[in-house]
């Protein structure tokens, strides 16, 4: 068996691979198989993103040319889908993670620890955990910064963050410097990240004082994430 063709082919080649796949691939698949996986249309059904509407207010003519009219659930879904394609095609996910781990004080920096349900949608197929964090985690990025910040940052990152090593994505803009369809789509996608959380857009639980009484007591000490004080958050 150990040195024969059939032993090597059937046991080492097929057998051990299938065994490993059953344990390490099929088992988690079966564990999560009953979790519903949202389509982009179902996501859009839950309501339009504030930042998507704001892109229309800021660039109405361009927006209507790229998306065939004012914001609707249909073109919101189209923008999310295109934004996700751009995010994958430009390899954003090789320098930005979308996963907050329960260690290394990550929840203090980014917000709540990632939960399996967050990945049960079409835009996480294949999943975008990420592999390297040259730039920040983006899974709680939605509404953290304004559209204007993102426009300036995509066009020339160093104009906003002098120490950044992020490339300039000038092809997300037309010749006048207005965002084109890809530019509006990627901003919509990034502003959507984290919007499904109950904490959104106040990832540290503070909320506006007049509306949401503080419920997390001692947790309020980390209301403003360290290193994030100058990021143009709206409150």
């Amino acid at each position, binding site marked *: 068996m150990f040195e024969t063709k059939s032993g090597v*082919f059937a046991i*080492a080649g097929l057998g051990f691979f299938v065994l490993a796949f059953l344990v*390490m691939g099929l088992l988690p698949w079966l564990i999560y198989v009953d979790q519903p996986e949202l389509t982009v249309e179902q996501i859009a059904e839950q309501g339009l993103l504030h930042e998507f509407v704001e892109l229309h207010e800021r660039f109405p003519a361009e927006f209507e040319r790229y998306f065939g009219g004012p914001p609707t659930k249909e073109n919101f879904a189209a923008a999310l889908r295109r934004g996700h394609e751009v995010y*994958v095609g430009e*390899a954003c996910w090789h320098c930005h993670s979308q996963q907050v781990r329960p*260690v290394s004080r990550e929840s203090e920096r980014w917000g709540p620890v990632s939960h399996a349900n967050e990945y049960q949608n*079409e835009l996480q*197929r294949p*999943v975008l955990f990420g*592999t390297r964090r040259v730039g920040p985690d983006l899974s709680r990025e939605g509404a953290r910064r304004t559209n204007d910040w993102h426009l300036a940052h995509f066009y020339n990152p160093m104009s906003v963050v002098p120490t950044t090593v992020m490339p300039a994505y000038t092809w997300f803009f037309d010749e006048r410097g207005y965002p084109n369809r890809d530019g509006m789509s990627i901003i919509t996608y990034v502003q959507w990240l984290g919007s499904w959380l109950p904490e959104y857009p106040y990832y540290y639980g503070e909320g506006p004082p007049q509306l949401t009484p503080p419920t997390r007591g001692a947790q309020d000490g980390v209301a403003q994430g360290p290193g994030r004080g100058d990021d143009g958050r709206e409150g």
Partner: protein
Amino acid sequence: MSVITASSGAMNVPALAAGRALIETRLVWWYFAASLTYMIVAMLAGFLFSLQFLQHYPLAGIELFSPGRWRLVHTNGVAYGFIANAFLGMLHWAVPRLTLRPVRGRGLSYFIFFAWQAVVLATVVGLLTGQAQAVEWGETPTWVDPVALAGLILVAVNFLHPILQVQGPMYVTLWYYVAAFVWTVLVYAMGSFLPEYFVGGAASGAIIGLFIHDLVGLFVTPLGWGMMYYFVPILLKKPVWSHGLSLVGFWGLAFFYPLTGIHHFLYSPIPMFLQYGAVISTIAVELVVTTVIINFFMTLRGRGDALRTNLPIRWFYTGMVFYFTTCLQCAFQATLTFQKIIHFTDWVVGHSHLVMFGVFGFWLLGMMTHLIPRLVGAGGWYRPSWNAWHYWLSTIGMLVMFFDLVIAGLIQGFQWRDLAPWEDSLVASAPFWLTRAVSGTMIIIGQFFFAANVVMTMLRRPVGSGEDSADAAAAAI
């Protein structure tokens, strides 16, 4: 052992009476030429990307030169252009010698060669036009995947044909190759199609983890070790030290390696008991690797002078030292303790460079250093000293890059844990990123020495030599 088989297999030689040459020498050479071309392209792509980290990207603002896309060309070019082509050439050299039979078909072999170059070129074009698939190392555009899989199946058919006709027990090299042909097809199918079409969310993360690690462990590693078991005894002119340890090494790798993939996503929403399993099997792989390393260094015992006098042997054993280093590192970094700090940092980037270039790149370059003069019908290398430059620039550049990135990773990881402002980790990384670019430049200059030597060896070979004398030289080995 393969030497003995080749010289005592006279009763099998009638298999050659079909009127075909045993080895398609020209094809081996073509594969190596393609491999070296892609290696240099992929390394230049990596260098270009490293300039982005220095805030001096020379082609900023040009969509086709988007740094992220060139990062994908770097990793995919290394995997499918450099390493796959070099292995295919090596298989055309070794498999017919080990089986005393030619591969399935001459026309099929040439078809596969052109088809594979088309696959790699299509991948590069697809990545540069923004059509990547979100599977690390499987970014091959979805429309290329079925073609690539068909190509891998043809490769398996072409080489399994002679192997399956061999009677009785097979030599170690063929265990690794037979298993590798099965694994590569299964791994590629799993990684390219399941996460894209059949399973989403955290469960797709488990499968992507398996894919990333199986591509290293079940495609590159078995072909690499099979190559070592073939060339090292031939070059040292002595058998492998322990057949028993060879068995332990192969079967241990076959059992434990496929189980390790989820260690890429520790502390993720993938069920924790599977993460524990991945950590344990990763540590088990390190124990298996130790037996293989012992076997090869005991084989070297008494022939240590070969490290000085025989450049291919030096490449091979340097690669083995790096292999042991990288596996030992892996046994630690895959634990939950290390992952808290080093996940998402440059530590992992240093690790992967040591694996793909320091180990498998070194082995393949050593193998080419041994074979290329024989393939092109030259008596020897145009300038042996250029090959020495190639070795030393590659080795020193690799060592500098490895330690540079590992240290950078520790600094980044601890700064993040200490909640330093994000920008601080960029400022702290800047000198390490500069060092990385410089060490990468050293490696690339080394490859230019080798490429120039290959070209000059081709041009200056003795008049009247060619395929015939190459075959004669090959037969004499």
